[in-house]
């Protein structure tokens, strides 16, 4: 399997669309938070941080899910890679932005974040193991039937 110009183009389209989508949502959330807290303006430094944070996250997403680097990898493999790298990226970003510190006050916040990531990941594993493994048998059995039928022709 080779990579075509189309695959490369698709990677950058995903990157562009992803950044646009994430920055828009983060901006809307930022404005809402400012409105709730009575802040009249959004600081430029916060906007820059938000933009860089979105870029990094989208880049990780595109690396794992666009057809470019891991075209042959199974979806669960991609998902595991994405969860691991994205969780690490978020932890580092939150620490750098001061949202997470090693104090007792942010520990429940960190625990909640790690908990959400783990629950999502475990749910995906369970669906893959129990729902799709069954379908795997059905599809392969039907394929064998088809191949036997063709051999007989």
């Amino acid at each position: 399997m080779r990579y075509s110009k189309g695959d490369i183009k698709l990677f950058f389209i995903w990157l562009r669309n992803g950044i646009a989508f994430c920055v828009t949502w983060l901006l809307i959330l930022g404005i809402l938070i400012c409105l709730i807290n009575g802040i009249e303006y959004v600081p430029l430094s916060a906007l820059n941080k938000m933009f860089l944070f979105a870029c990094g996250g989208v880049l990780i997403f595109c690396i794992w899910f666009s057809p470019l680097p891991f075209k042959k990898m199974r979806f669960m493999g991609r998902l595991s890679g994405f969860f691991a790298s994205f969780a690490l990226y978020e932890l580092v970003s939150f620490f750098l932005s001061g949202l997470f510190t090693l104090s007792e006050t942010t520990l429940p916040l960190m625990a909640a974040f790690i908990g959400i990531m783990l629950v999502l990941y475990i749910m995906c594993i369970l669906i893959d193991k129990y729902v799709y493994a069954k379908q795997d048998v059905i599809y392969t059995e039907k394929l064998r039937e088809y191949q036997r039928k063709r051999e007989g022709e």
Partner: protein
Amino acid sequence: MRICIHEQSKELQIDIYCKRKDDYVMRLKRHLELFEHKLCAKKGGETFYIEASDVYYFETVDDRTFLYTANDVFEIGMRLYEIDSSLEEFGFMRISKSVIVNLNRVHSLRPQLNRTVMATMQNGERLIVSRSYIKRLRNVLKIQEGK
């Protein structure tokens, strides 16, 4: 195009007489070759005739079509839609915009969480059946909806 049959020769022989060896004539030649289930493919300047049953899959990359066997890759002068229409009856099926697979060479199929299907070939290579072609795959393999 005029087609004449002469019962003269001991062997079956087809000669194409034309004004110019253009794309139309070459397509006709390729179709005749396909009649014997053989595909004319090139590798390193050499021409090879490959049995359709030995082909694992075809893939188009940047307007060039490649033919994959168990451990080799060849370039073929056919478009994917030409292959799709002429090899369908031999168990070939389009599984994405750029890939046609030989279902007889697929080892296993595995539906995935993102609603695509991963096809593992007999040589261990993996191909993705994209969402738009899954319905067709289900029809060919006679898999009921919802399963």
